[in-house]
């Protein structure tokens, strides 16, 4: 297939394809981080993850409308405020859901699957009733559109670069919070042994609520960022849920590093295969490879070593 193309063409395509892979990697990490915290740290199978993302997207849409109507001069910067609001909205909803629903189910992790699936259906219908069944178009400030011209034939999408920077920032913050801060130590203590953690004076209920809120909040930020690359509608969250679980499970549920490694390997495999064959086939082969590896290594790529 390369016979007809010049070396220069091919070179720039490989560079751009490399970027495509990195962007996909960032997207995967961003959408999986929230779930990695909730599923990985708390063992809650959160089927409503996609809907928390879409809440973030709707918050972004509303913020953009508000700015257009009342503060058009500041429109170019609205996106940063929108992401913060998305984090707060999804996080608050997450904490509410934890209080109403999830906290009664910690001893029955499989039931969380059913409960959160029901929650996802309710949220979808709520979005449909509030925002209408049709997709909404989120208008972006001019500087976020288009691409950077690196050379004549190499162009890098700005929204991709934006997602990459955001992913790096959020990953570092999450890693810091979980592994360096006092609160992060409490979270990990609760994960390892809930009863002992309670016995040494950690308020496990509070830790659970904030952990769940943090996971949902990050989902909200991801949803906000994805308004740049995807659609915003009541059921758009469903588009992400399969890939998200794939990344988290493949990486090894309780490991942040595993999530990143798995996002990297899945995204690179997929984007490379996509270039050499059709999109559907690339997806099939990627999934087959993941299934094969999980059969050999059911605990995922990285597993937390604990004494059983």
């Amino acid at each position: 297939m390369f016979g007809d193309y010049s070396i220069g063409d091919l070179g720039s395509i490989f560079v751009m394809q490399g970027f495509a892979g990195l962007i996909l990697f960032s997207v995967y990490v961003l959408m999986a981080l929230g779930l990695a915290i909730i599923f990985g740290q708390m063992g809650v199978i959160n089927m409503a993850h996609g809907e928390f993302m879409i809440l973030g997207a709707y918050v972004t849409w509303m913020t953009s409308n508000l700015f257009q109507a009342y503060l058009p001069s500041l429109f170019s910067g609205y996106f940063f405020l929108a992401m913060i609001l998305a984090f707060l909205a999804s996080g608050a909803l997450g904490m509410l859901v934890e209080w109403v629903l999830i906290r009664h189910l910690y001893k029955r992790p499989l039931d969380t699957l059913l409960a959160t699936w029901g929650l996802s259906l309710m949220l979808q219908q709520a979005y449909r009733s509030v925002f209408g069944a049709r997709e909404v178009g989120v208008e972006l400030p001019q500087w976020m559109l288009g691409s950077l011209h690196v050379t004549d034939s190499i162009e890098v999408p700005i929204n991709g670069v934006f997602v990459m920077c955001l992913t790096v920032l959020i990953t570092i913050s999450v890693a810091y919070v979980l592994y360096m801060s006092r609160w992060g130590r409490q979270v990990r203590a609760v994960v390892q042994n809930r009863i002992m953690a309670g016995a040494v004076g950690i308020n496990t209920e509070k830790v659970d609520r904030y952990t769940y809120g943090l996971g949902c909040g990050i989902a909200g930020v991801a949803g906000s960022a994805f308004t740049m690359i995807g659609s915003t509608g009541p059921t758009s969250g469903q588009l992400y849920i399969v890939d998200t679980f794939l990344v988290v499970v493949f990486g090894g549920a309780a490991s942040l590093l595993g999530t990143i490694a798995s996002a990297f390997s899945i995204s690179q495999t997929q984007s490379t295969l996509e270039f050499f064959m059709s999109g559907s086939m690339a997806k099939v082969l990627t999934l087959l490879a993941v299934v094969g590896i999980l059969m050999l290594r059911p605990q995922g790529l990285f597993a937390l070593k604990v004494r059983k």
Partner: protein
Amino acid sequence: MGMAAVPAITMLPRASFAQAPATSAVNTTGLAVTDTEVTVGILHSATGTMAISETGSIQAEKLAIEQINAAGGVLGRKIKFIQEDGASDWPTFAEKAKKLLVNDKVAAIMGCWTSASRKAVLPVVEQYNGMLYYPTFYEGLEQSKNVIYTGQEATQQILAGLNWIAKEKGAKSFFFIGSDYIWPRTSNKIARKHVENVLKGKVVGEEYYALGSTQFNSVINKIKLTKPDVIFTDVVGGSNVAFYKQLKAAGVDLAKQPLLTISVTEDEIDGIGGENIAGAYACMKYFQSLDNANNKAFVSAFKKMWGEKTVIGDVTQAAYLGPWLWKLTVEKAGSFDVDKIAAASPGVEFKGAPEGYVRIHENHHLWSKTRVGRAKLDGQFELIYETADLVEPDPFPKGYQ
């Protein structure tokens, strides 16, 4: 049947519709027809994934029914509708269709959107002898006594558009990209045959992405590498939004790179955003911006009923045709009986169609014009080209299979 007619006859003296023919004469098969009312069903997804698309169809059908009632109804009877929700789930569609036909005895069903839902409903309407008016442009390869297809089938929609772009842009090489299911694959198969055999051009790539896929950077790179004269797309649903946003972000300028889509109507642009798709060409039979008296009246009535901000896409207009064509056919047949309607359908013409003029073909599809529009920043299409004559529907195209 005779039993059903008895109460109707006893009611006759009370009926004030002097001109309306007797119920026993126009309804010999026990449909839900009284002296003053006739019941039809509306069967679309008001919930679930497809609600995005089907909402417009529901609105259009309700508008048409309201207008028909305001103009005196059908054979002197007001149309009453029963709306059922297919919930984006194909078995549910079949079940609800059966409920409408068996329990409610509706005289016709306006409904379905995806081919999958139509395929699920088809055996039901054939078994219980119902009448389905189906609004979506679709892949063809189907024809039924019990279905009137008010949208275009694939050859009607595609061929004229390809001819136009080949002539206008001198296009020789085409890159196809679609969602991975029956409609894009069949449409692209027809398009490929036409490009290769009739236009003597070349298809330099044909790609499919799973429904709901949101990552198109790799295929956009392939498009950049192969530099096709035309990108031909039938990506649907949420993927559509992702595709155009990423195309724009990758620096593909649709003003310089011709792109012909058969899956983007005004409805979709709402979600995609006008700035992401401006300059693309769409091949359809209807655009909201069409400049004719029928359409102006239709658009203003639609907006009055459903709000200033609503947009009207190709399928919405086709859904609007359903109740009208049914009314005209009933009047031509002088009966609500399904068999008589099926037989009377060919030749029925609707001069008040927003798209201009349509006529039902022997094969139960519509003769209609095919048009090419260019997407503008405000989310509307500017009409660039329309076929001089009505295009004949050809659901089983020879040489394209």
